[in-house]
């Protein structure tokens, strides 16, 4: 096993990896940007080195600096977390050249899976079902029209190098086809420096369900159940659960077997996730493979008891995956809420700033709190607004939901806005409770009116009143002369009020 690992990331995922290192007796090395000098991952690591300026380009995306620090501090391996350089095959190649063990897949499968058309070709060849559409990028408008007629509208235009909803266009009417194609190409060009776009049949009322896999150096691949990720906002997942309330056992095992086949087809290694689109008839199609740890990996850990980050390290160090498929027996139900520094009452605007008060939601059976913040911490403007992940486990889905609501009720973040109230709404919603929801759920939810509660308003007013009363009282009994000016000011104010 490694003696020292560098974590090329920040926030909750860096903290997650540092904790796994500590449990394995591995020295953890953090790197940080100027904006992250006081960050939690720096506080918890064994060692820490400054990367550079606050912008990702100067720090967490700066390949040369990261490689150089890794070599200088004597780390044998590097964990990329998710985001930043985690799926950058160029970076992986550099690690390979410099003899640094990259805790993730080799560069080749990463490259194949990183290009959508290449992975579609590969998957089709391996017998993995793919969404009807083109296998190659479309360059001219004539081919576009021809192919669109072949697979029939509605269709999706997708950037070959895309992700996160950028360079994505849904076309329902044929007269929008060409203009959407031009827009998708220009967005793809500006976002990924690659204008290539291809066509896919649009699946109505889609479910987004993914399979976690683990693969070792010796060709042994297992799947660890699915995660239901259909609760999305602007193509970003916000809440995940396992098992999916939409699948039956036959479907989940079939998807698991296909996911293993997909990974084997590209000689995949380490932890990875095969994402599927599932239509309303439970027919499923390969969507893409995430060649890294997922943000939502904790729900799988909660039901299987298997620590995925530790397995990432064991596999990277060359240990065989001793887990057998039949030994992996998920138990109960788990849900994860991604707590973002965003204002759900104001169109999910980011809300950076200082966390003045923090009540964390720990305590009791089945509550997990993976955090990247602390009281007094200033949430920086430069990075993803994910503050923490709150995960619960229950014997049943209902218990996991009730536990999440309980934990959310104890979780209070003051000073900035968070998505906590938004999750409380989701978890009370009849359609979510029914378990039958698809990727359109949040869109529909946002259109519903929100009946404003007023009980807390009354309490807030009473609090302000009592605070004023008590300060007044302590002022009139205190002998300090410094207080007098405030007192006078208050007097003048009250005089003014009376006059009006």
């Amino acid at each position: 096993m490694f003696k020292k690992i560098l974590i090329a990331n920040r926030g909750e995922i860096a903290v997650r990896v540092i904790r796994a290192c500590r449990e394995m007796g591995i020295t953890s090395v953090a790197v940080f940007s100027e904006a992250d000098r006081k960050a939690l991952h720096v506080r918890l690591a064994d060692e820490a080195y400054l990367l550079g300026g606050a912008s990702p380009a100067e720090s967490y995306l700066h390949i040369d600096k990261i490689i150089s620090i890794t070599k200088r501090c004597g780390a044998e391996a590097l964990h990329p977390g998710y985001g930043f350089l985690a799926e950058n095959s160029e970076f992986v190649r550099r690690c390979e050249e410099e003899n640094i063990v990259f805790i993730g897949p080799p560069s080749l499968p990463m490259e194949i899976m990183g290009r959508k058309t290449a992975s579609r070709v590969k998957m089709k060849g391996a017998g993995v079902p793919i969404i009807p559409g083109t296998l190659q990028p479309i360059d001219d408008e004539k081919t576009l029209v021809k192919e669109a007629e072949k697979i029939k509208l509605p269709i999706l235009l997708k950037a070959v190098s895309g992700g996160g909803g950028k360079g994505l266009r849904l076309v329902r009417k044929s007269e929008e086809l060409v203009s959407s194609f031009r827009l998708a190409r220009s967005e793809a060009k500006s976002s990924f420096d690659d204008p290539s776009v291809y066509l896919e049949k649009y699946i109505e009322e889609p479910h987004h369900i993914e399979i976690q896999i683990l693969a070792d150096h010796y060709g042994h691949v297992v799947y660890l159940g699915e995660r239901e990720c259909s609760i999305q906002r602007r193509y970003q997942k916000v809440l995940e659960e396992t098992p999916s309330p939409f699948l039956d056992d036959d479907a989940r095992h079939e998807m698991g077997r296909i996911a293993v086949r997909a990974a084997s087809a590209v000689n995949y290694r380490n932890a990875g996730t095969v994402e599927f689109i599932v239509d309303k008839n439970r027919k499923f199609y390969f969507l893409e493979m995430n060649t890294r740890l997922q943000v939502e990996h904790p729900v799988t850990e909660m039901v299987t008891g298997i620590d995925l980050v530790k397995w990432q390290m064991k596999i990277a160090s060359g240990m065989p995956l001793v887990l057998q498929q039949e030994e992996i027996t998920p138990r109960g139900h788990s849900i994860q809420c991604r707590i973002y520094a965003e204002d759900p009452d104001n169109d999910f605007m980011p809300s950076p700033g200082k966390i003045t008060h923090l009540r964390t939601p720990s305590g009791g059976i089945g509550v997990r709190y993976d955090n990247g913040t602390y009281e007094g911490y200033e949430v920086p403007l430069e990075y993803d607004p994910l503050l923490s992940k709150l995960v619960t486990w229950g014997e049943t889905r209902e218990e996991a939901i009730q536990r999440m609501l309980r934990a959310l009720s104890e979780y209070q973040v003051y000073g900035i806005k968070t998505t906590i109230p938004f999750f409380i709404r989701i978890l009370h919603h009849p359609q979510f409770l029914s378990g039958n929801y698809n990727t359109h759920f949040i869109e529909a939810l946002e259109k519903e009116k929100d009946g404003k509660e007023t009980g807390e308003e009354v309490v807030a007013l009473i609090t302000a009143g009592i605070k004023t009363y008590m300060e007044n009282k302590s002022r009139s009994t205190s002998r300090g002369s410094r207080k007098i000016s405030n007192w006078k000011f208050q007097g003048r104010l009250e005089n003014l009020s009376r006059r009006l």
Partner: protein
Amino acid sequence: MNLSFWLNNREYKLSIKEKQKNDILVDLSGKTYEVAVEVLNSDEILLIIDGKIYNAIICASNLSFRVYVNGQSFDIEKKSISQILGGMHNQRQKRDVKTSMPGKIVTVFIAEGENVEEGQAVLILEAMKMQNEIRSPQKGKVTKIIPKAGDSVETGALLFSME
């Protein structure tokens, strides 16, 4: 003690009387609440109202309070000079749109003097790796736009004014 507060553009009148230590009667909008009070620290108060428990955090500035209760925040204004004096000429429908977060201006869609609909995007502000459309809060004319594309803005900075 009689007090007057503003919350969400509505005025509330409170009357406060101490029955005994830690036990306070509050009259609010005609209803009387018996409140047991426990001061946890300088900005945190535990209230028991009719047996029900509330943890409230309260931060005071000169003219207002920010109160946090059950994860919600409330900005309560004292009946202040600015409100009293400013009450008159705030009637005109002039409206300033400020930013609630620091960030970088990516695009400005509207020119000064243009008319916009309610909810129309005026500019895009990038923060935390996300592009955020800042929309017009009302139908009207954009009289002034302060930043231009590429500018960085701080929290509270004026973005544009409308009439």
